[in-house]
């Protein structure tokens, strides 16, 4: 009985998953960063405030929203620069979505 183990395929899984995850996370993070730069700081409250969520309370959320508005007002960027950043953010979100779709299509085709 011979055991043949295809070690290359493990490496393949690792590399493919790594590239996929880094692309998706990277584009998303860049998009968030650009949104902040464009003066639209996302303040997203938890969908439901349960005991399990110790990370942010309703009060903290309001505080964060205020701080975000203040920071956006003080931004040294011109309106044009902000617009560019915002457009960049949406493009980056789009690229993130495309990376996901591309990965899924590759799997289905296979």
């Amino acid at each position, binding site marked *: 009985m011979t055991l043949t183990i295809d070690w290359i395929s493990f490496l393949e899984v690792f590399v493919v998953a790594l590239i996929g995850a880094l692309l998706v996370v990277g584009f998303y993070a860049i998009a968030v960063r650009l949104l902040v730069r464009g003066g639209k700081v996302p303040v997203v409250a938890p969908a439901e405030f349960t005991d*399990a969520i110790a990370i942010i309370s309703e009060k903290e959320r309001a505080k964060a929203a205020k701080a975000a508005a203040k920071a956006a007002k003080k931004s040294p960027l011109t309106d044009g620069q902000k617009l560019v950043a915002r457009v960049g953010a949406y493009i980056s979100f789009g690229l993130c*979505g495309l990376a996901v779709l591309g990965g899924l299509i590759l799997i289905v085709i296979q």
Partner: protein
Amino acid sequence: METAVLLVVLVIALSLFFDFTNGFHDTANAMATPIATGALKPKVAVLIAACLNLVGAFLSTEVSQTISHGIINNEEAINSDLFLSLIFAGLIGAITWNMLTWLLGLPSSSSHALFGGLIGAVIVGYSWTAINYGVVLSKVILPAVISPITAGVIAFLATRLAYALTRRYDGKPDGRDGFRWGQIFSSSLVALAHGTNDAQKTMGVITLTLVIAGWQSASDTEPQTWVIFACAATIALGTYVGGWRIIRTLGKGLTEIKPAQGFAAETSTAATILSSSALGFALSTTQVASGSVIGSGLGRRGSKVRWRTAGRIGVGWLLTLPASATVSGLAALIIVWLGPWGIAVDTVLAVATVLFIYLRSRRNAVTAANAMSEVADSGLAVKVKKNPPPTRRQRAIMREEARRRAAVEARERAKRKAQTKAEAQANKNSGDRSDSEAKK
């Protein structure tokens, strides 16, 4: 022939029941992190998970083919009646072990319970040589060991990347809350990935049963359409029904997972499972998701592994395969000894055990034993400091700040010194003057 038909029906019913418990058990895998960070309302999360599990089951059938056309040697040459009852014994072992670990709150994996069960039953009831160990090793055991580590490393790097790209050095809001939106998509991807891997395992078992019973040709590797539909629907139903457990246990204290971290963890879980499914590796989705949660925890600054907790999780994983193999081996032994009566005895025993476990679990209050999920719990293996140490750039900024402050202080000190000196001089002068006036 009639017993064969009865057996096939019984095995298919049992496989679907296993599929249901699998979905029931694993809702939390996909949805633990978004619920923990508040990205989704629990009810919505459960519904999304159920729908995407259904879709995922149709995406890829590679994993199903690994099971139906890989792990057993010479499928056509096998005595079908005996072998069908062995698959039956394997399923009984897997389900019993799954329910038992669920009751005891041990970390376990439905997939490994299934493989352990099948392998144990075949070895005990048939022979050592019926199993293709090469396929078992390269498509089941090695992926089991490697995939959580792979997912962990990827999650670590992805978390680092997410934090590095959004870090701000001027103390202004960093907008990391925005990852909460992203989590809606990333957790949906995990549910989809779950469908591409876990529903496939049951399809594989049913296809294997059909091939051995002679109802499907061995050269036809694809599962039949009704099998895909049945398995997809059952796992989706199980996922939906399993949701009540999550909602019930929500208040029970979870690991603190931040949105950026959760997003990175889910993305790497989905990426690892999807790419493995495409190559036909039968993974444990629970283990991959746990590996990601631990890896992403380590990706945050100032985090440390709690080795004791991590060790407990690891031992639970290693135990699953041999333990369910033993249970199934015993079930197979009863069948070998008693023949068709053995099947009846096994069925009665299994139904009794499952019923007992179910009733026990209803009686219990919510405890660690039936708490939300191993995936969320595995986050406990990482300790994250409340105030993480500064990054290199933050340290540089702090040094620069300190130097500036020191310079300002030194200047002020010098100024104060000069002032006091001047005052002292003035006092002295005025003192001299008053002395001389007194002398006069």
